[in-house]
């Protein structure tokens, strides 16, 4: 599936219904939007009307939460068909989902569940990514998830697993900075090892988000502003990967748009400090 690496889009936000009118009536300093695919797999009404308007004005990428690429149940063809129809409507710069499973036997647990890092799981996921890419006729982008448990049967590190999937299935990666931070804390690995362990040329997007600290573990809640430690890791990620389309991901306790734009400006500032403003501008 020969295709050039998607372009650097700059600094974006997740599109949330609370912000529709502020976005369409103002001109927020947001370069692009990420839309949650499942929210727009509907028949009509306001969601699709707003989506069409946003797509007229901004570059858009699609982000799903229920592909369940690592599930051992068969791929859901109905879901893939609806996803493909939405892709045709949106014409996104890329389509992402998570390197996880969400349920088996027709159940959807609505969570991004962890995969054991085994050869068996690797072969399974690589095969499924290839099937989905063939069906959609384009590359997928897969995101590393936050996890809370470690499986005894794992045979490799998470970053080795992620890298193998990307290289063998020939897909892109969404490097979720917060998820790396959360999982590194929960499992006691080095976030820096993860950062340097994934192939640079595969990473097309960063997620930056907040979380909830429970002392013995961290939960990936996306309901807080981004904390200093995650900003530090973001700084290291920009230094390592170069200009990568960056997005603030907030799913709960959603603040006014201006507050998220401010956080986005902070990301822009870090990238500019690390890469130098001219290089960043040239990449855009």
């Amino acid at each position: 599936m020969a295709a050039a690496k998607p372009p650097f889009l700059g600094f974006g936000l997740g599109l949330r219904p609370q912000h529709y009118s502020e976005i369409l009536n103002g001109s927020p300093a947001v370069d692009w939007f990420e839309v949650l695919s499942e929210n727009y797999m509907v028949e009509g009404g306001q969601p699709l009307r707003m989506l069409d308007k946003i797509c007229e004005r901004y570059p858009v990428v699609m982000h799903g939460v229920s592909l369940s690429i690592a599930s051992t149940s068969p791929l859901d063809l109905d879901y893939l068909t609806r996803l493909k129809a939405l892709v045709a409507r949106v014409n996104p710069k890329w389509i992402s989902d998570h390197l996880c499973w969400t349920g088996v036997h027709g159940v959807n647990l609505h969570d991004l569940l962890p995969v054991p890092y085994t050869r068996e799981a690797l072969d399974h996921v690589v095969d499924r990514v290839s099937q989905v890419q063939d069906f959609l006729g384009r590359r997928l982008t897969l995101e590393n998830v936050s996890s809370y448990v470690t499986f005894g049967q794992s045979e490799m590190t998470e970053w080795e697993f992620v890298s193998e999937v990307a290289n063998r299935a020939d897909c892109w990666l969404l490097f979720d900075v917060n998820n790396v931070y959360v999982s590194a804390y929960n499992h006691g690995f080095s976030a820096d090892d993860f950062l340097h362990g994934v192939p640079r040329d595969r990473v097309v997007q960063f997620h930056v988000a907040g979380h909830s600290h429970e002392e013995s573990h961290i939960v990936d809640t996306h309901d807080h502003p981004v904390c200093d430690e995650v900003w530090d890791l973001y700084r290291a990620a920009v230094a390592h990967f170069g200009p990568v389309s960056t997005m603030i991901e907030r799913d709960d306790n959603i603040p006014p748009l201006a507050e998220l734009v401010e956080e986005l400006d902070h990301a822009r500032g870090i990238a500019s400090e690390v890469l130098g403003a001219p290089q960043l501008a040239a990449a855009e």
Partner: protein
Amino acid sequence: MSSLKDLQESFQRGILAGDDTILAEIKDSAKEDRKMLFGVYRHAYVARLAEVLADDYEQLHAYLGDAGFARFAKSYIAAHPSDRKSARDFGRHVPEFLKVDAGFNKHPELAEIASLEKALADAFDGLDAAPLKLARLAGIAPELWTKLAFTPHPTAHRLTVTTNAADIWTALREEAAPPQARLLPEPQAILVWRQDVTARFRTLGSEEAMMWDEAAAGTRFGVLCEMVATFGGEEGADFRAATYLKDWVDMESLADCRLLP
């Protein structure tokens, strides 16, 4: 070592049924034991779906209060594991659940408030269609009107309630104290539809409801007028039928009209 398939099945049973078999596959972390760590997933499943229900059934939540709604959500989540990709579909069985579950069915207004909320949510992102405009009807020669048949807007949905659920919903929506729940002397017809991007509902009198149901089934206007005359008396029947029709056009609950042979 479990196969990936066995591991996923065991993980899922651990979340849905509280089965601890999966713990044998999980390691303690340096800071926490495995049961507590797996508990993050158990807790998240229930918490996330309870939040979905609270979003989709906002007025039911307000009516039941936090504790009552939490009790309902826990029972519903246990009775209906999610089987759809979209969380939006998770609560689709709520009206039926409240109607039959022994913990809730003694309060029939609960299922009816839920039916109304579900119908409004379905209308919100249901199929688009341009509404039928008065100008279109005005262009049809008067002698042909008896042959006219109508197509409801695709989001239009008829409900019938036996309690004052609609009044309760309206009060809650306005953040006012809801009236005491009561059975109505007669069942009440409700029409739900979407006007532009706003999901709406309106109660219908029995004559209007009869005419709507017949019109939605494709009965031509001439016959509708006869039915209205039979239902509510011949005097002024044509005028009443025309008034109902004009209201439907004004509120954009019709999508099309056609002339039958």
